[in-house]
């Protein structure tokens, strides 16, 4: 039997499975995921699902019936714990072995959580639907919420929880929120909007320790000796690629799975989504992208590579967006916080603008706030 096995049943894995069928692949397709759920969409978790504006049903990405109809075998609640590349055999957590002709690794990332904070009641990350179910239950009784880390997850969740009328404090050691992703003028705008909406934003200060009572968090102590009352703490400290299960596989691992420009890790092995570090020839740079559109594009690309044996490199313009209060921030390209911004449409005062992001005399990205159509059109300027 000829078979493609996809490890990881989230956006990239499902896009690969669907793409195989779209591009005419008629052999077996098996999708393996360690969560107990059907594939679901993650971006709304920190937004409409956390707030309760959307019921969970809104984020299921497919039904069993659709998968059956397409001949996609989905196995949930089981992870993979090794692969024998030479024998083309995947080892599952229950010891079962699954033979493949082509393997797609789409195991994603998991949130970082300091080991000493694991298992404390009232402390949670925000990555999975189980996390959000737990957070929504905890928010029923929580008056004071502290978010540690003002990146994408932290800043978006803070905006939602503040709108739910909780006392909302955000702590980040960098001088501005989202400073690892956005140039300072845009990060300053994010800070201003959070403060106007009543978020207590504490940047430039780190967390020293969590104070607990009977195994439950009660306060967060900062390095400036401030003690913040906390009924609920959300940790948003970035994510780590899920590659440990490949440690003895011989596959190249370095900040994710190392692929070539065709998303190939080796003969008959591909990677897609957050876990894949590949060579984007358009930017002459190695990239690993943790954004939603990328997962779908790369999954689709790998599907085409398997189904049609095509030889075009995978060279997209990366895209991300973030919604916080009344800001919709979008960027196309390879954005770095140190890029020089030039506003080409709208104005920063109006909080509606499009800017080019330049480094080394090249437009590497375009960034927009509340001007989506114009931002998309401006991506043509990326050189």
């Amino acid at each position, binding site marked *: 039997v000829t078979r493609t096995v996809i490890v990881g049943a989230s956006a990239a894995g499902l*896009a690969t499975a*669907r*793409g195989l069928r*779209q591009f005419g692949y008629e052999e077996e397709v098996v999708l393996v995921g360690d969560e107990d759920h059907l594939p679901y*969409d993650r*971006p709304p978790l920190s937004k409409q699902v956390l707030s309760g504006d959307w019921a969970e049903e*809104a984020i299921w*990405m497919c039904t069993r019936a659709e998968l059956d109809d397409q001949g996609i075998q989905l196995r949930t609640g089981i992870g993979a714990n090794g692969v024998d590349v030479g024998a083309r055999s995947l080892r599952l957590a229950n010891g079962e072995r699954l033979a493949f002709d082509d393997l797609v690794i789409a195991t994603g990332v998991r949130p970082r959580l300091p080991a000493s904070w694991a298992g404390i009641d009232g402390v949670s990350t925000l990555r999975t639907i189980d996390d959000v179910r737990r957070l929504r239950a905890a928010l029923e009784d929580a008056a004071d919420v502290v978010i540690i880390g003002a990146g994408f997850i932290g800043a978006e969740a803070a905006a939602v929880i503040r709108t739910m009328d909780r006392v909302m404090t955000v702590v980040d050691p960098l001088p501005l929120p989202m400073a690892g992703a956005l140039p300072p003028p845009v990060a300053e705008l994010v800070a201003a909007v959070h403060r106007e909406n009543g978020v207590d934003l504490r940047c430039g200060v780190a967390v020293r320790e969590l104070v607990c009572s009977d195994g439950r968090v009660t306060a967060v102590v900062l390095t400036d000796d401030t003690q913040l009352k906390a009924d609920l703490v959300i940790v948003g400290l970035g994510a780590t690629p899920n590659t440990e299960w490949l440690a003895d596989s011989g596959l190249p691992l370095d900040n994710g799975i190392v692929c070539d420009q065709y998303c190939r890790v080796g003969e008959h092995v591909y990677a897609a989504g957050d876990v894949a570090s590949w060579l984007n020839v358009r930017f002459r740079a190695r990239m690993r992208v943790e*954004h*939603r*559109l990328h997962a*779908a*594009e790369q999954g*689709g690309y790998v599907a085409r590579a398997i189904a049609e044996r095509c030889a075009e490199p995978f060279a997209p313009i990366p*895209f991300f*967006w973030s*919604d916080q209060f009344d800001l*919709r921030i*979008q960027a196309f390209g390879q954005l770095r916080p140190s890029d020089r911004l030039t506003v080409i449409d709208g104005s920063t005062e109006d909080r509606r603008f499009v800017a080019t992001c330049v480094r080394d005399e090249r437009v590497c990205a375009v960034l927009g706030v*509340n*001007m*989506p*159509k114009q*931002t*998309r059109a401006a991506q043509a300027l990326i050189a």
Partner: protein
Amino acid sequence: MRVIVDTEKCIASGSCVTADPDVFDQREEDGIVVLLNEHPSAEHLEAVRNAARVCPAMAIVVEE
């Protein structure tokens, strides 16, 4: 073929416009999807399928 878009789910990435500008557009003021042609001809099938597959908000459904 029938194309259905969900303006509530749309996050205004415009990836559908990039995939097929004859079928999709965006509103000037907020970038939300505008469906230009609910029943595109068969030659658009591949591009419209691609638009649905890459949409980061799962806001496009294609009934074939």
